[in-house]
């Protein structure tokens, strides 16, 4: 549970572990019924309509939002850059 939480970048308190484990157990046991299905030789479907990649010229296009609008969204910024705590 704690490993899964860490992978998900979520912190879970002691009190949360048991109820969450119970919920996830019941969900996993429900989805496990897929094992009853014979899927040998069946191709998986990742998207329904067999779409092909859409290409376009690699050209700069106008974007509706301005750079300063996007920077203004950041919780912290300085000198036109988004600020985060020191990493190294």
């Amino acid at each position, binding site marked *: 549970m704690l490993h*899964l939480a860490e992978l*998900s970048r979520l912190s*879970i308190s002691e009190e949360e572990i048991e109820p969450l484990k119970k919920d996830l157990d019941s969900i996993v046991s429900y989805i496990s019924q897929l094992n009853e299905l014979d899927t040998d030789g*069946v191709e998986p479907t990742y998207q329904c309509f067999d779409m092909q990649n859409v290409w376009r010229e690699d050209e700069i296009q106008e974007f509706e939002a301005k750079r300063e609008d996007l920077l203004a*969204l950041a919780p912290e910024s300085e000198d036109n850059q988004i600020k985060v705590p020191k990493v190294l």
Partner: protein
Amino acid sequence: MKIADKNTKAVDLVKAALAKAEEYKDYNVFISMNAEAALKKAEEIDQKIAKGEEVGKLAGVPYALKDNYSSHEGNTTAASHILDSYHSPITATAVAKLEAEGAIMIGRANLDAFAHGGSTENSYFGPTKNSADDTRVAGGSSGGSAVATALDIVEFALGSDTGGSIRQPASFNGVYGIKPTYGAVSRYGVVAMASSTDTMGCFAKKAEDVDLVMSIIAGQDKKDSTTLPDYWTKKLDEVQPSKKKIGLIRDCFGEGIDPEVNKIVRAYGDKLKAQGFEIEEFDMPILKYGLAIYYVVQPAEVASNLSRYDGIRYALRSKDAKNLDDIYTLTRSEGFMKENKRRIMIGNFVLSSGFYDAYYLKAQKARTLLINAYNEAFEKYDALLCPVAPTPAFKLGEKTSDPLTMYLEDAMTVPASMAGLPALSIPAGKTEAGLPVGAQLIGRAQSDQLLLNIAKQVEEGEK
């Protein structure tokens, strides 16, 4: 639908909608109102009308916008704490198209946070109440949009449907709700949930109104490469069924289905018969696995899509964060609702290297079998009929303690989503206690307008 013209002022339409929103405040339909901007737009439209200028197909029509659509008006919160301060710098394509036709957004409607849920109880801003009984849930996740339409606050509302989020609240509140074919409407600017099944649709009270709104928002968009070439282009009456035959999915009328729902949806089948359709019962045993497929694939896509909320570039950043890891972990832990966290964890579980084949790959293979079963059915039928949800609206709080019981609500809506098919929730009647019940018509890809035409025929037959 009432459109502004020389006799009907847009300002009056907007004022009436705002007054109704105020009257029904206790239902908690809206997360934020857009009164000032809406009135200003209405005035502009009235001025244009006075000058005889072009004002668009939805001139002055007030609408409610599910709060997961981006626009410059108000914050796009997705009913979550992590985005409650987020003011979007972009406008969703669907919104831009509506605005270009003169429609006026009066408020941002409540939803389950990030559209995760079937009751609108998972909202950071509290639950929305059912329009027919305020002790019951609105359904979800587009609960606010459905209730806004049902209470006649607005004549239409936008929603999004990934596994039933338009259809089920439409059923619970007695209005039409359409989940279009995957790719019919651009997803650009809508907060992503599960990208392979996310669709954008609407609520309205008449089939023709649904068609009008959808014909405006549908269409290919360079900003969403999954959009299909334009096909929502016909007049409803031009779209006729070729077989005049509808398949009633017998598997959806058995155990676990409320007897009143069963009766009302079958009675809708009789109304179709009265319009000259042949109704044939058939079995689709693979449907039993539809929900399990969905609750593997959808959380996997959710986990991936929600990884962008990291506290770095926009919206919430935890005040307690001291290092980079803290920013990610604390921000996400504070900002997501419990249900968001469950889905992220399930998603990361089914995608993890040890379990990928057993769950994710298995589900995607089962998805192929499901699609094959639909294809087989559409060789015989124009459309398929089944309930939208196993029960009418349940009590507030009734299903919040056990997530799996809440998931079971989606059992009859998720299969069409997994196959990308259009599905329409049609107000079909009421239980003895006065709770609305919807019937669901599912069609082959791009047959959205046919479903609406069929519903319209029944609507007119009842006049």
